[in-house]
């Protein structure tokens, strides 16, 4: 820069030479409208959910089954799977997304909030948007994003700096952006939003910062917020305030960082809530700490609470209630039941009446569990040795990450009545420390000593749980924790990925490994299955994040870097 141009820059109020340079491109819009042959995504299409040619929701459908009607991927045919195409994310950090497919276009988000629109058949890039994020993000657990929601002509993504952004699905241009919360107060957003009708629902993360949790509804067309339901009290005397000592609810966390479910029949929105803050020191928040570690049933139009059920009252282990909900019509004791079921992070598989929230049953779905038993009303009876201590010696199971964890998905096959739940098998020593609360500063109050992970004793399971009995029908065992999502199919094959960097196909009837392919990166994403022109495709993300994954017991030597693999049959 010459002195003359510097002077000009100064006159315009430009602070230095660098800011006068043109900014790097952050968006590459579609050269011609992408997916234009398909019309806007309708409410009826969203209600139908997964179909052969499309995958519209993080959970596959409003019931979160993550079950594809594609029937051509069978135990016999999967041996013919090969890579059809692949796409890099260009980012590090765990690649946790579930892609969405509509109109022949795949919309997939990466860590650090890149959003890619790809030809679902060839992988050709159609448009791309890199969200510009501040350098002082408040993240507990990595720069993950688990996917987008689609509705009308908009694709909606939540961001790590706690914004909600809507993009034109055909061009990639931003339609609107709203701030969900001030990220500097400890908030971030990682989950795929959920669209029902004209409203879009999103939760928030921040339970490791004491940031009060909430569930929000926004107008899909304008981005204007319609309602907010807090998950902790906001004033003394409110319902639940008496379950927090003093005013500890002010820094009570209870985040909502996973995608919810929607029941069309009763017009009810279900959303899960995570840990109370601080995580591992409950001394100053005596009480049950409502609505932490709960499932809430809400009126989707107003956010009004219909009922709630708390899985882990006064949690001091970080057993977030945020794992996937399945809305299952089943039979218990010979009687038909409209159930809501969840493989909870605390190691128990819960069955509730989804019209009333009444507890029906809890059974252990992981192999190692000693933190509590569950009484007839569904309340844990805690093992005294499980309480965090200054110098813990006892190994307590499951680990603070679970069990199953809300950062990956399970699946439910209506034909078999089985829920497929990937999980970590590990125990920890729960150490208690001093928690210092200041907005935007980590507020955890302890640290699990990851002894099993450090000693190579942690391993992984995919468990097939029979919803009717709560019994485990089969387990697939892997030498590292299973921390990727699954998708089941009408062909009887389940797809997932492991921490050895392999894509896997399992037999849904037996759990037997049918096929594998070395993708290279740790499996942390949510696979999907779809068809284009009658040909089946399986999309599986590859790429972990050693920081968190090794906390659970995954290999820390796998290099990072996301890559999407899409397989098809010869």
């Amino acid at each position, binding site marked *: 820069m010459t002195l003359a141009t510097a002077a000009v820059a100064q006159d315009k109020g430009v*602070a230095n030479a660098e800011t006068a340079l043109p900014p790097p491109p952050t968006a590459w819009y579609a050269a011609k409208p992408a997916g234009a042959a398909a019309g806007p995504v309708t409410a009826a299409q969203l209600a139908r959910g997964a179909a052969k040619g499309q995958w519209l929701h993080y959970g596959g459908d409003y019931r979160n089954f993550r079950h594809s009607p594609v029937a051509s991927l069978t135990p016999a045919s999967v041996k013919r799977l090969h890579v059809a195409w692949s796409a890099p994310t260009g980012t590090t950090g765990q690649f946790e997304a579930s892609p969405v497919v509509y109109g022949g276009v795949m919309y997939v988000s990466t860590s650090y909030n890149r959003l890619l629109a790809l030809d679902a058949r060839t992988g050709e890039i159609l448009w791309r948007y890199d969200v510009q994020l501040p*350098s*002082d*993000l*408040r*993240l*507990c*657990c*990595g720069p993950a994003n688990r996917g987008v929601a689609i509705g009308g002509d908009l694709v909606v993504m939540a961001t790590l700096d706690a914004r909600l952004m809507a993009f034109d699905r055909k061009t990639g241009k931003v339609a609107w952006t709203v701030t969900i919360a001030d990220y500097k107060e400890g908030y971030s957003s990682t989950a795929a939003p959920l669209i029902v009708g004209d409203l879009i629902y999103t939760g928030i993360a921040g339970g*490791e910062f004491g940031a009060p949790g909430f569930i929000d509804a926004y107008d899909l067309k304008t981005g204007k917020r319609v309602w907010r339901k807090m998950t902790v009290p906001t004033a003394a005397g409110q319902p639940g305030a008496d379950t927090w000592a003093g005013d500890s609810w002010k820094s009570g966390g209870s985040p909502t960082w996973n995608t919810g479910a929607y029941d069309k029949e009763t017009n009810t929105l279900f959303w899960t809530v995570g840990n109370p803050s*601080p*995580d*591992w*020191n409950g001394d100053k928040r005596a009480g049950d700490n409502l609505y932490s570690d709960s499932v809430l049933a809400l009126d989707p139009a107003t956010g009004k609470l219909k009922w709630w059920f708390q899985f882990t009252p006064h949690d001091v282990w970080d057993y977030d209630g945020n794992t996937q909900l399945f809305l299952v019509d089943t039979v218990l004791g010979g009687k038909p039941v409209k159930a809501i079921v969840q493989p909870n992070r605390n190691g128990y598989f819960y069955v509730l009446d989804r019209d009333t929230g009444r507890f029906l049953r809890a059974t252990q779905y992981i192999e190692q569990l000693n933190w509590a038993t569950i009484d007839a009303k569904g309340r844990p009876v805690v093992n005294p040795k499980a309480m965090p201590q*200054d110098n813990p010696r006892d190994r307590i199971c499951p680990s*603070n990450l679970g069990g199953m964890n809300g950062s990956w998905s399970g699946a439910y096959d209506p034909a078999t009545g089985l829920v497929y739940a990937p999980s970590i098998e590990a125990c920890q020593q729960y*150490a*208690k*420390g*001093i*928690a*210092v609360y*200041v907005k*935007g*500063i*980590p*507020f*955890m*109050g*302890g*640290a*699990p*000593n*990851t*002894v099993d*992970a*450090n000693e190579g004793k942690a391993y992984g399971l995919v468990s097939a749980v029979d919803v009717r009995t709560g019994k485990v029908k089969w387990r697939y065992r892997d030498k590292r924790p299973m921390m990727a999502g699954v998708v089941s199919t009408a062909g009887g094959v389940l797809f997932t990925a492991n921490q050895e960097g392999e894509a896997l196909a399992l037999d849904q009837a037996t759990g037997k490994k049918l096929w594998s392919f070395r993708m290279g990166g740790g499996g942390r994403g949510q696979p999907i299955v779809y068809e284009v022109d009658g040909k089946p495709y399986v999309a599986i993300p590859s790429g972990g*994040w*050693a*920081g*968190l994954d*090794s*906390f659970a017991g995954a290999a*820390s030597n796998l290099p990072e870097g996301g890559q999407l693999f899409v397989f098809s049959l010869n």
Partner: protein
Amino acid sequence: MRKFAAYLAAAALAAAAGVAASQAQPPPPAADQAAPAPPKPAMTPDDLARGKALFTGTCGAYCHQANPAAGPGQGADAPFLFGCEFKHGGSDEALFQTISQGVPGTRMVPFAGAIPDDDIRRIVAYLKSASTCKAP
């Protein structure tokens, strides 16, 4: 922008302290220098216990490995602080600066104002007391 400038200044300070810490013995003070600063008060076992509890409760878990025996690269993405190597300086002063001012562009937020200076010094003393570094 001002905040970013403050970050840079803090980082430079921390880096400088780190360089100083890695150098050989400093030269002896010249005879005409002012009297040396009074020695720092020694940390008591209670101070170290509080430093440990603060580190466990605020810095461990999803950030730094809280178990000195675990070693680097195990179960945490933030740097291992019980070893021989430090990204931003391993002297007491460098560690104090890094904790109080944070590291721009990382998850390490500034703790100045959130944790009193005396408690930050207790955390530093605990880290040193629990170090597994065998280097001379």
